Structure formats: C-alpha cells, structure tokens
C-alpha cells in the first residue's frame, strides 16, 4: 500500500491529477490521459524515490498504476 500511495502522490505532483481521480486500475493513457512526457517525468521521479532503474522495455509493458506497483514490488 505504501508503494501505491507514493506512486499516486507522484502522479498528482507531476500531472496535477487529484488523488481521488486515481485508483489502482487506472490506465495511464486511457484513463489518466497522461502525455508521453508526463509518463517519463513520473518514471524519473519514481526511479529517484525508490532508487531503482526502469528500462525502456519495462516501461513499454506498463499500462496501469497497478503495473507500476507490481514492477516495484519485484525489486
């Protein structure tokens, strides 16, 4: 849950989307309508906060908030 909360607050911070509009199943493109640059900025902040590195291949497979959570849980 802690990972999820952190991700949601990063999305809110970068893309100015209220946390109440985001849930675990939110799709980054279809639901949150994030622009490609917003996704990159979010990933960059996640990499910094979680001290991880996310490859382009991993990023391509990410569709939803839950996908990011799963990706970080495996680290």
């Amino acid at each position, binding site marked *: 849950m802690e990972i999820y909360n952190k991700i949601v607050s990063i999305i809110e911070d970068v893309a100015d989307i209220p946390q109440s509009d985001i849930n675990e199943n939110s799709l980054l493109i279809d639901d949150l309508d994030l*622009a*490609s*640059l917003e996704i990159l900025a979010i990933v*960059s902040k996640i990499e910094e906060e979680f001290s991880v590195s996310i490859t382009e291949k991993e990023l391509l*497979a990410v569709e939803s908030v839950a996908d990011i959570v799963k990706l970080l849980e495996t680290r």
Partner: protein
Amino acid sequence: MLDFIKIIEEFGNMTAFKSLAGKDSFELSYNEYLKEVSFCAYNLNRTFGDLRGRHIGLLCESNIDYTIIMLALVFSRAVVIPINSYESTDNISHIINDSETEAIIIDKEYQEKISIDVPQYNKATLLVHSNLMTLTDFSEDEADNPLFIIYTSGTTSLSKGVVLTVANQFGVKKQIINSDFMGGPDALPGMKIYNNFPFYHVAGIVALLGSLECGCTLYLSANPKNILFDLDGESIDVGFATPAVLKLWKKAIKRGNTSRLGGLNLVATAGAKIDRETVDAFLNNGIRFCQFYGMTETGGNVTCNFDIGNHIESVGLPIPGVNLFIQDEEICISGQQIMQGYYNNYKETDKCLRGGVIHTGDLGYIDQDGYVYITGRKKNLIILSSGENVSPEELEKMLYKCDSIVECKVYESIDRIVAGVFAPKEYHEDIREYVSDLNKTLPLYKRIHNIEFTTEEFEKTASGKIKRH
C-alpha cells in the same frame, strides 16, 4: 563560413556548459569543452581514419556527451546522422539503411535497438582523454558539403532524411535570442540557458550552436527525463523547451512549485503550436514568452516572436537571412539555411523544394506589421506538443493489419492521437485489445489514446479516399 571555433575559443574561461545530475553535476568552461571535443576528434581519427564525407550515426542519450561527439564528428568532416532514441527498432533500421550509415556511435543501453548488421562503437571509448586534434573551421569551398542527415516523419509512412549542409548551419551567426529584447548584445555572453530540445532534433542543434556562438552557458540534464526536477535550486535566465515541457511547467506553477523552473525569466519554444492558456500561465507569473517557428527542412527556426503580448497567436517575424512569403495561402521559405534536399529521394524533394524555395505545407498569412500566423496544414501530418511529427498513414497501416477494422483514420484531438474506426459493433472489444497490444509496441509519443468507433463508413473524397476533415 562562420569561424565557429575561433569565435568560441575567445570565450576562454567562461562557462560553456553545466550538466545537471544532482550531486554529480559539473561545469565545463569553453576552453575545457573545446579540449573535450579535440580529444574526441583524435579518438575518432584513431578509430575510423579520415572521416571526410563518411556517414556516421549517433544513437546516444541527448546530453553533454552527445554534443561533444557530434561536434567532433562535424569538425572531422563526417556526415552526422542523429538518431531519435525513442524511435522503434524498425524505423531505426530504415534510417540506417536509407542514409547509408556505415557505423554507429552508441550508448550501451540502446544497443538492443539495432536489429541490423552495422558496426557499433561504444561512445565511452571515444570520450577518453588521449591526444588533442586541432579543430579547423569550415572554408567557403566546403559550403555545400553535407553536414547532417536528420530524419523526419513525413506524410508517407517512412521517415525522410533531410540533408543540411555546412552553409545551412555555419553560413551566418545564429540568432537564438533577440539581444534587443534582453538588454543589448552584451547581455548574451554568460546568459544561462536551459535546453531540453534533443540534439537529434534540428531545434537542439540550433540551440547548441547558437548558444555557443553567443558565449552563453548551456544547462543540460544528464538524463533528459529529469526535466521537471533538475532546475530545482538552480538559477537560470532562459528555458528552451518543447510545448509539452511548457505544459508540465505550467502545472508546476499551478501547484506552487515554481522553484522547479530555476527562476527563469524567459521561456522559448518551437515544434508545435502552444495554447493561449499555457502562454498566459507564464506571462501572468512575470515570465516572458518567445515562440519560434521552423522545420528540419528549413535548417531550424525561420521566425521568432519576442513580442507575444501584442501578437499572441503569431510565430513572429522572419529572422535575418530568411525570405518568407505566402503563395496560394502556403508559407514558403528561401534563404541560405534551407536544406539541400531529402537524401536519395528526388521525388519527395521535388514536392517540397522547388527553385530554391521550401513549400512548408503550413497555411498562413502575414499581418501588416510583418508578423507571421499559421492557420492550418496542407499536408496530412500530426504535430504533437512534444514536437514529434507523426504520420497518420503509418498508424493506419498498422491498424489495417487487424482484420476486424473495415476503415480507419488517425487524427489529433487536444494534443492526443485518436483512431476513428469503422467496424461492426461485435468486433469493438477485439479491436480495443488489438490497439492496446499495438500501443505496447509503439514509442510513447506515437500511442493511440482513444478509439472513436462508428458503425457507418467514413465520408469519401471524389477519388474514393477517406476525407480527413
């Protein structure tokens, strides 16, 4: 030709670059920077021998190292093919084949993007401190030699290589900032400019050369993804950024995070049209705004608008050396900086470049003060706020591989890519899945955000083509 090396040598110990990477940030003076380029030129010569006229690709992260290698290649007289690292593997193969690239200088992490047989050289080996190579400026005899082949998405599905010559980039001193606007010519040396235009894009190349020619300090993110966080705690004067970045900055202002803009007092943008709300967000916060207009084919920007308050919708006045006029509503451009043509593609060149004039495909007009306005596009091309051009036909071809799609047309709506699809209702779910899978194979900027289904076929033109508008 411009004595570029001589000019920048004179800036000596002034700061040329600051690379932003948190605690690993560092600065380089003009002297130190030129030394790095000279080391690299020596290493290139050791690796390749004489590079004159040889086609070398560059597929690296767009940061300070990129600029060192690019300038070392340029002053070794190679023809540089800068490759967009976000491109798909297939498009990168096309670029390498089409441009007849004989070798690629590459960042380790991009190696898996190359699927064809071409010699690759790790960039790190070319940046080691070895011996210095003397860098010499271009002579008049070299004016028409190709310098860059930059690939750009056209209206057809395959990108085309724009050939820019020595004269296009070193013909005259660049005017990236109107010095009158910033307090006179003396204000430019030492001015701190943050640049986020990638160096595989002509806007990045112009920002690099223009900044160095004026003695400015160029701030670059070591990792360009960090655009939103790198300037926190820095103090800069000007931000060069794509409209997409400006939208992110606008959100940062709205949320009270203005420190993320590094205290800049001018933002300058190009690549796509910017909305009024974004412009106002900056102006209302005491940040001046400048809009450039140009394309790869015109060798970079051909207009700039420093008076956005009075001409808000305009892309500005033509810059010195550019002749801009309207023919049949289309913006046409001539001047020393326009491209030589598309590489090995006479048919496409003839469509765009006739009698030394670039037919931009943009529709527009010039007002009584000489300010240029863009009203639409003649050609079918999506231009996103990220500055990326996307060919609708390329995406439509991919969509037609799904048998359930009877007809489709791809277009832009509110800065997002939308696919209009005609198909029987029972196939809509399958098509959604197909598009979702397709998106996973596409670079982020090319992804289809929405599908608009219709159960009636699209309206057609007299020749039977689907009507775009």
